[in-house]
């Protein structure tokens, strides 16, 4: 680009002076100029607006069938259509007595049930009913080693307490054992203790054993000593 000469620069400065010198324009002139500009801008704007309004078309509204209102008016009286307010199923339900489940109560019940049975791991075996019969049966069972000399048992803890969960049951013989392993109906007993007592009545074993034990246990005691002395004294005379 060529460097402008001093002369040309001077010329331009002069032009600018004549054109833009604000002292040359009166206030009215400025006013009209501004007004003209304003109207021009406004014309442009309205033209643009008209153009965009033509582009957006509002579709026609088509709502289809209108839902029938629940409430209809018959002259001065408003009528509600009962069948549409509530369907039949809900109406029936609402007319029945309803059970309200209080979560706290449900939880308490669950805990109580848990304590009442051995739980799901043992198919809810119920808590032991500590009837007098059960206590006696349990006590005798702890001493069962004394009942049968031919049978051997694991050592039983004499202080054992009844199990917290237990039931009393009756054996049903196997399908081939009707004659070999069955107690006749008339000989059946209500409890384990009764069974043992019944067999004792026929054998008398426990009584005999008791006498034997007493005999050895009392040897060396007062009665034994007296008997011995009586014998000796007899011999003297």
């Amino acid at each position: 680009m060529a460097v402008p000469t001093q002369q040309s620069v001077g010329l331009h400065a002069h032009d600018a002076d004549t054109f833009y010198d604000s002292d040359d324009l009166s206030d009215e002139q400025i006013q009209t100029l501004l007004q003209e500009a304003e109207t021009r801008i406004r014309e442009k704007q309205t033209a643009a607006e008209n153009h965009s309004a033509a582009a957006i078309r509002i579709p026609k509204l088509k709502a289809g069938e209108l839902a029938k209102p629940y409430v209809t008016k018959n002259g001065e009286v408003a009528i509600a259509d009962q069948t549409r307010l509530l369907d039949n199923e809900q109406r029936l339900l609402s007319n029945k007595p309803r059970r309200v489940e209080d979560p706290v109560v449900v939880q308490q019940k669950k805990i109580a049930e848990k304590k009442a049975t051995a739980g799901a791991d043992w198919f809810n075996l119920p808590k032991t009913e500590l009837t007098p019969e059960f206590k006696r049966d349990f006590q005798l069972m702890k001493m069962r080693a004394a009942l049968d000399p031919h049978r051997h048992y694991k050592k039983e803890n004499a202080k054992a307490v009844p199990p917290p969960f237990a039931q009393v049951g009756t054996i049903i013989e196997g399908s081939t054992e009707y004659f070999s392993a069955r107690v006749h109906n008339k000989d059946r007993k209500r409890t384990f203790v009764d069974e043992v007592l019944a067999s004792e009545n026929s054998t008398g074993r426990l009584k005999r054993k008791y006498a034997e034990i007493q005999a050895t246990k009392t040897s060396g005691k007062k009665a034994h000593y007296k008997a011995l002395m009586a014998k000796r004294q007899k011999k003297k005379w």
Partner: protein
Amino acid sequence: MGAKGGQKVILEPHRHKGVFVARGKEDLLVTKNISPGESVYGEKRISVQNSENPKEEINGDGPAPATTTEYRVWNPFRSKLAAAILGGVEDIYMKPGAKVLYLGAASGTSVSHVADIVGPTGVVYAVEFSHRSGRDLINMATRRTNVIPIVEDARHPLRYRMLVGMVDCIFADVAQPDQARIVGLNAHLYLKVGGGVVVSIKANCIDSTAAPEAVFAREVQKMREERIKPKEQLTLEPFERDHAVVCGVYQRSG
């Protein structure tokens, strides 16, 4: 056995879940009959009269009526699992609600007790390849809906993949020399990680020339190789001769 029909017993929970003991003149191992009124192989049963159940008061109709519960006597001379329980096994890896894959089900006598243990919410997949025994097994399963009888060779576990899902425990009593491999094949497909394995080992079925102890040790080693971590081994004396039960836990690979 000395117990006679008509005698009274006290029924209480056993240490193992789903198992019970009936105590009278002698102690009997029992399971709760899932199909009351029937014995499966002529075994003795125990009936318990439940008193009316006040907790099941329904809709103010008063207490639920008295019902009977029934238990079946489990003979340790006829079932290796029962023998193991009486022998004091630590864990049987089955309990109410469990899913069990039983390999070598035979006619289903032991399976019926396992079905009692897992109860109505559990499942027993019972595999037996002999058609003869399979018939009895299927028959038993018609009354016990929690037993799924499968008459197939347990060496090909993929053949029953449509019937069997993931299980909590595999019990094996196939009495075959390759039992450890059979157990492994089934475990890799169906046993969940951490699941239990209980196998009954009959020494002379695996090697009739070696000493039983040596056979058991070798079988335990084979199980290790199948990613089953051995937990315990116990002999089934006096109920079975030269028999052992080995229990283990299935482990994740790597």
